[in-house]
């Protein structure tokens, strides 16, 4: 009696285990088409698009994701990880789309290729990397590229404002900038400081680095003698508590240009006008309709988000080129 009970229990347990292991999970929608799991307006499957990347592009992606959810019912999650980490995620297939404030590096391309990921580059907007100071700063209205280089380069000896210009106060400059995971950091160094020997950091190391641009905003806000740089959108949102500094590509401060929508769009804000990118995994773009639709959305309706955030919309030609790129990939 007891033996048979025991045996039947064992058999039952075995059957349960077998059932558990044997069942490959199927989406409920596919298993029972009649039931219909999504009661929302969206049709099709419920794939959630994964977006990561640059903190400069994050406000754009967040707005685009919100608008896409409202109008198309596409679900997405967005994380602000910094450009470099975003590419890592893309290579590990942990995200479908990553924002970038600089073009992809060769090493990052190789990391992607090693995992069979091919990133497709799309320009989504234009940014003017902005040099800002405290609004109480009444001496510094413009800086030349040469001055910026002297101030930020590796091993820079400039500690006080009057070392940059003798008529400026003898007060310590407090510097705020993005950390080395940031695409903004890379872009600034490339344009202002230029080539450096292999293995050496292009930038001085005694400034206050931060992953989040809002930390930089707060830093400059709170210190009369501070100077910092970050994307134009973060200036636009904090206009009242920051002051823009013009940048002159020549040695003459009279040539200095202040970033605004016009100077960023026509490229006269030199050399710090730059495109903002998203990189989409080719595989995801081809196989997941939600990713395709969202990528298109970035370039069409999403452009409103770009200007709302404070960046500058794409010129029509760039937009069309991007759309064509997408349809080419999808059509393959």
């Amino acid at each position, binding site marked *: 009696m007891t033996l048979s009970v025991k045996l039947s229990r064992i058999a039952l347990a075995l059957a349960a285990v077998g059932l558990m292991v044997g069942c490959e999970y199927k989406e*409920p929608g596919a298993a029972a088409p009649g039931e219909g799991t999504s009661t929302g307006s969206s049709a099709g499957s419920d794939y959630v698009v994964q977006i990561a990347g640059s903190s400069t592009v994050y406000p754009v992606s967040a707005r685009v994701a919100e608008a896409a959810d409202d109008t198309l019912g596409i679900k997405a999650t967005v994380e602000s990880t910094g450009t470099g980490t975003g590419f890592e995620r893309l290579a590990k297939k942990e995200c479908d789309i990553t924002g970038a404030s600089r073009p992809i590096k060769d090493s990052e391309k190789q990391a992607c290729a090693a995992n069979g990921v091919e990133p497709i580059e799309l320009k989504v907007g234009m940014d003017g990397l902005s040099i800002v100071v405290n609004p109480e700063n009444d001496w510094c209205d413009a800086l030349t590229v040469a001055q910026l280089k002297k101030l930020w380069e590796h091993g820079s000896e400039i500690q006080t404002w009057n070392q940059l210009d003798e008529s400026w106060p003898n007060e310590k400059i407090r510097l705020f900038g993005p950390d080395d995971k940031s695409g903004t950091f890379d872009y600034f160094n490339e344009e202002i400081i230029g080539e450096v020997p292999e293995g050496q950091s292009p930038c001085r190391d005694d400034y206050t680095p931060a992953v989040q641009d809002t930390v930089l905003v707060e830093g400059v806000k709170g210190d009369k003698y501070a100077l910092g740089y970050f994307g134009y959108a973060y200036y636009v949102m904090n206009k*009242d508590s920051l002051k823009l500094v013009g940048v002159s590509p020549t040695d003459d401060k009279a040539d200095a240009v202040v970033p605004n929508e016009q100077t960023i769009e026509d490229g006269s804000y030199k050399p710090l006008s730059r495109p903002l990118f998203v990189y989409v995994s080719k595989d995801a773009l081809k196989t997941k309709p939600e990713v395709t639709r969202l990528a298109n959305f970035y370039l069409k309706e999403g452009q409103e988000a770009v200007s709302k955030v404070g960046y500058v919309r794409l010129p029509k030609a760039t937009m069309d080129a991007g759309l064509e790129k997408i349809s080419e990939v999808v059509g393959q």
Partner: protein
Amino acid sequence: MSDVFQRRLKRRQRTSRIFELVCLLSTWFGLVVLVVLLTGLMLKATGTWDPTATGAAKATENWLTPTLLTNHMSSDPERAGMVASIWGTCWLILLTALLSVPVGLGAAVYLEEYAHENWLTRFIRLNIANLAGVPSIVFGILGLTAFVRMFGFFGDPTAIGVPLGIGMLKIPLPFGKSLLSGAFTLSLLILPIVIIASQEALRAVPQSIRHASLAIGATKWQTIWHQVLPASLPGVMTGVILALSRAIGETAPIIVVGAASYIRFNPGNIERMSELVTKADGLLLVPSSQYTVMPLQIYNWVLNSPDPEFKNVASAAIVVLLVILLLMNGIAVYIRNHFSKRLDW
């Protein structure tokens, strides 16, 4: 002679009064700071007064609105809500409790009731005490490798289904950025606290209860289940409440194991209380769902949102977080008191 005595008496009494004053000040210090913080927070959240506002900031707006509780995230501060993070936190804490309490209590029972006192048990105890002091970010990194990526064992992500009465419970492999990863990670984080608190509670149960139970012929299992555990329950619950409160506030490990900063749906797409019943199949999708939690939402509003108005929204969200924390603790304390009343020796 009596002169000396009188002098000393006065001195002793003075010391006594000073000691009382010091203790009183210590009590007030914590309280006053807390009250100041909470008042500042409330003023900022309701827009009555913003001590940090510069210029013509919109300090008059009330951010503590019902839409904060019902809306999803938005880049527009007026429309922004935290419903996804409220649900996310509740689900995460529920799963964490389901995972950590049985394991923690089991470990404590073994260590207190079964294990012999030798170098191994002493070593294990020492390690548990040490683990309780490990920074939470370390558990986050561990969770990323062990649960989110599962050491890369599975290659491309897949999922298995576990058949339950109402449908298939989806378990992704590796866990990925799902609630499961978060719950397992937080469970590891709070297990040491649960174990230590439960051990203390078990130790506080008088030895005579065990002896009496065993003496009338109860087995070890019956003794533990019917006598020791009920008697220790209030103490165990206190430990669990403290541990879960800590888990609610954790941000760092949750960021690492991939809770999303920006997400506009609830776990399992359950958007309303009533849908817990009407959309029961959604329940099974909860563990595999992506999520965010309240502290992360606040962190994100403060640090990742270019619009400075979000700092005020964050203040309102902190008020909500505190209220929910208080509610959860209240419920837990009620349960504890309810159980301990039934106890009579």
